[in-house]
Every structure is written in structure tokens, then in C-alpha cells.
């Protein structure tokens, strides 16, 4: 298996409703990534694109074919990846495998979504399609509802009074907005307070508006290259040293683990084992903070803190710059935004810029190893990537 590097990244500003189409948004990110790689679209041998809801938001299936053509990468193989919110992360995983195998030298991976365009009722309905249509949707499940169920279960299982847990969760959102306010590409570039969180309307008890990420529009892209090509293209290659992926059935079928997420623990272990690294080696992490409680669960599943203690760690500042494991310095899904098909590669974008030292006041000084964590559905698709500086 060959070593594989990321040689260029691009992303649009994440935002509310855009007039641009999926193909246009992805193309902006893709051209930036290709240009940064010192390549042209004709050098791209395949496109792996995450997109979940183009059919519903724009009446567009197979956007990957039109995107390849639109950017001038004529007639290349182009695949669409749908793993709910983890779609683009899975696209990177597969792109890695094909370059590592030797079949391709240069692959473009990315994702795009125009979720804000749909409006809340349709977006809520279509997002819920990532749950089990037979055994969960009849009860009216939504994505906030999945994590609201987990929040109450978490409070009960670890014996944390709900009011205390809610303050810990609110601190997660406050931190995300603090860093989002310093990211020019974030959907929300404003700080929020504890009062803002507690005064926001209830979405799914106990999750209030500011416990939830937004529906966003946006695109992101990364260029993967074999080690040999990467060394000629850039003096700052970022190597993908570990990949992990796992799946799971519907939420009640996960009962033996909940509120732990078995698919995440398996996925993370696969990535750590492949890299020969562990949680202590990670300098910076972009994790799947779709809801505030999701961050606490992820911090524990990834091995950064003991079960039931992540909320205290957040309150101590352990997840901010200078803490044990800085997370979501992009603003995370909460503040940077969550155009679901694009999120996985947007996380990779942030980690690559962190490892290159390009994040300004959000920079973790000297970061050498970073990790992404992307969750789709009610943990139906989990994907973790570990990235390492190649210089």
C-alpha cells in the first residue's frame, strides 16, 4: 500500500440559503483545492463526491457527473457517496484507498449540500431519512430527537443532574461560537453567552436552538496524491496515516452500548491502530458536534476523556486551545455550519490548515497530528481520519 497525501484543500464560506447550485458550490471549492495543489482539472483522475439531499433540494441526482464536467475534468470516473452527515468523510476514505492501491495517483474528494435552501420543515423531514424509515420514522424521529434521547440517557446513566449537564452542553456551543467568530468561512461569526443558549427556543427537549447546528449551504474539496506525486507538488504534504469506518443499525438496536456509540469506538480504534497512534498523540481534532451533547459523547468515544466526564473537561477548558485536546477550532458544525454532504471534507480542510500553521488566532501552535470524526445518521455511518504533517 502506498502512502497518500493531501496536497490541496478548498472550501466555500458556509452559509444560509444560497442562490448557487450544488454543482457551482462544489466547483468553487474544487478549483481552489486544485489550484492550491499546483494541478489543473485535467490532472484529476477520479472524483468522489459526498452529497445527501441534492435530489430534494434541487431535483438533482448524480451531481458528481455534472461537477466533474463543470470543472473541466472531462469524462473521469465520478462517484457519489451518501452516508448521511458522514458522506464526504467516506469519500475521502475511499479516495485514500484507491490512491494507496496504485490505481490512481491524483483523486479529488469532497462534498456539497444546499440544506438551508430547503427550509426547516423539508430539511428536517429529509434529514430524518438517515434514520430507520421502518422502525424510527413512524414515531416521528428527527435528528435533534436522536441526540435529545441520548442526552437524557447520558444524564441518567452517569448520574449527572440534567441542569448541570445542560450547562456543560451550553459551554460546548459557547466555545464553538468563540472559534467560529474567528473563522471567516463560518456560517455564524458571532460569540454567544450562556443566557443566549438558555433563552433560545426548545427544539427537542432538552436540546434548545443553540444546542443544535444549523442547516447550511456549502461545498468543500481536497486533492489526494500518491507520495511520489505529492513530493513534487508541494513542500507541505499532509499524510493520511489512519482511516477508520464502521456502521450500525437503528438507535434501539444499539442498546447494549448507548449512550456510548459502538460504531464510533470501532471506527476510531481502526484509525488509531492503522496509524500506530492513540488519543494522547492527537494535537487537534475536528469532531462531529451536530448537537452539544454529541460533542461530549464523541470526546469520550474517541478516548480523550473517561465516560461521563467530558462535560467537566469542557468546563475546565480542556477542549480549547491550550487544553488537553483542542476541538472544533473551525467553529465546528455548530458555528462553522453543517452542509451535511460537505462536512467531512470541511473538517479535513481545517485540520490540514492547522497542520500547516495557517489558522491565525485559531492556530494550535506546532500541531503535527490531527484527527477528524464524522457521524452520519443515528451513528449508522462513522468515519475517522488521522492526518500527519509530512515535513
Amino acid at each position, binding site marked *: 500500500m502506498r502512502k497518500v497525501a493531501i496536497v490541496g484543500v478548498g472550501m466555500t464560506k458556509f452559509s444560509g440559503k444560497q442562490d448557487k447550485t450544488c454543482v457551482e458550490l462544489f466547483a468553487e471549492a474544487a478549483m481552489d483545492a486544485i489550484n492550491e495543489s499546483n494541478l489543473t482539472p485535467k490532472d484529476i483522475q477520479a472524483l468522489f463526491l459526498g452529497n445527501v439531499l441534492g435530489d430534494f433540494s434541487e431535483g438533482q441526482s448524480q451531481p458528481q457527473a455534472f461537477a466533474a464536467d463543470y470543472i473541466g475534468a472531462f469524462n473521469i470516473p465520478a462517484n457519489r457517496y451518501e452516508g448521511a452527515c458522514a458522506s464526504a468523510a467516506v469519500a475521502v476514505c475511499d479516495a485514500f484507498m484507491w490512491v494507496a492501491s496504485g490505481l490512481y495517483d491524483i483523486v479529488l474528494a469532497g462534498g456539497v449540500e444546499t440544506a438551508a435552501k430547503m427550509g*426547516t*420543515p*423539508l430539511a*428536517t*423531514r*429529509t434529514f*430524518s*431519512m438517515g434514520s430507520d*424509515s*421502518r*422502525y*424510527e*420514522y*413512524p*414515531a*416521528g*424521529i*428527527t435528528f*435533534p*430527537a436522536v441526540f*435529545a*434521547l*441520548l*442526552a*437524557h*440517557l447520558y*444524564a*441518567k446513566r452517569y448520574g449527572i443532574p*440534567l441542569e448541570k449537564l445542560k450547562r456543560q452542553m451550553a459551554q460546548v456551543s459557547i466555545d464553538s461560537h468563540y472559534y467560529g467568530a474567528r473563522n471567516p468561512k463560518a456560517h455564524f461569526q458571532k460569540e454567544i453567552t450562556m443566557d443566549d443558549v438558555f433563552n433560545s*427556543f*426548545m*427544539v*427537542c*427537549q*432538552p*436540546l434548545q436552538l443553540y444546542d443544535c447546528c444549523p442547516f447550511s449551504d456549502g461545498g468543500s474539496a481536497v486533492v489526494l496524491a500518491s507520495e511520489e506525486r505529492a513530493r513534487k507538488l508541494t513542500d507541505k504534504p499532509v499524510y493520511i496515516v489512519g482511516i477508520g469506518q464502521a456502521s450500525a*443499525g*437503528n*438507535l*434501539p*438496536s444499539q*442498546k447494549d452500548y448507548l449512550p456510548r456509540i459502538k460504531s464510533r469506538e470501532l471506527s476510531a480504534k481502526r484509525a488509531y491502530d492503522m496509524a500506530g497512534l492513540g488519543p494522547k498523540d492527537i494535537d487537534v481534532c475536528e469532531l462531529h458536534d451536530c448537537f452539544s451533547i454529541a460533542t461530549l459523547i464523541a470526546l469520550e468515544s474517541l478516548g480523550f476523556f473517561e465516560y461521563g466526564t467530558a462535560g467537566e473537561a469542557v468546563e475546565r477548558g480542556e477542549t480549547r486551545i491550550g487544553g488537553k485536546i483542542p476541538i472544533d477550532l473551525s467553529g465546528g458544525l455548530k458555528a462553522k455550519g453543517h452542509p451535511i454532504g460537505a462536512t467531512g471534507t470541511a473538517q479535513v480542510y481545517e485540520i490540514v490548515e492547522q497542520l500547516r500553521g495557517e489558522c491565525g488566532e485559531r492556530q494550535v501552535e506546532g500541531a503535527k497530528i490531527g484527527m477528524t470524526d464524522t457521524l452520519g445518521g443515528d451513528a449508522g455511518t462513522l468515519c475517522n481520519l488521522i492526518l500527519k504533517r509530512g515535513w
Partner: protein
Amino acid sequence: MEHKLSFRDYSEALKQNKLLGLKCKQCGTITVPPKIACGRCAGTDLDIAELSGKGEIQTFTTVFVPPEGREAETPYVIVLVELDEGPWVMGNLAGIEPDKVTMDVIGERVKMEPAVFPGDKYSAGDGARPLFSLEA
């Protein structure tokens, strides 16, 4: 390979207030809702078993922001219930004002009746789910 208990058969039985599961002849585990293989050992030698529909609430949420088409039901309570036979199922909770439900409901014993989602333009027809209420 044939399904011992399909989604449609499970749903139709549930409409008649019969909660059906599958008992694995290999390991004895009850799988509900049904799968083509045992939820624990993946064995495929399964018998249909009628379950009590009784259990204990493990967690809940009250939904205030509905998906398209569910506005008239909102607010509504979703629960995960551990059935007496072991598995967890997702259903709704009736008999309590939705916005009055608190953590105190966790651990409460419940019994079941059916409720039917009539389907929408995206779904493949209707689907039943358990509608739980607190045991008297």
C-alpha cells in the same frame, strides 16, 4: 432467502396490537423489530414470538420542531423502551401532556397499544409503531 417476519407483516400485526419479534433458536435472543438474522449472533434459524408489549422507559424527548407533514402531532413524545423480553424499541408516549414530561418518566413501567403513521409522499406506505402509556 425468505423473511421469517417482514416489516409489512410486523407492522400489520402491530396494528392488531400484537407486538411480534423473532426468537433465535441458536442463542435464545429476542430480536425486535425483525431482521433476517438474529440481532446478537446473526443466526438465521428464528421463530416468531409474540411479546408482552410491556417494559420500562429508558429515555425520552419531546419534539417541538417537527418534520414536514408531522405538524399536527406536535409536540409529541418519543421514548425508547426496554421490553420485558430484553430488546429496546422506539415508540411514542401518550397520556401525559408532552411539555410536562420530565426525567422522572425514565424507569417508569409502560404498556402498549398501536398507532399508525399513515405515510407521506416520501414513505413506502404506512407504518405502525408502539404507543406506550404508563401502567396504572
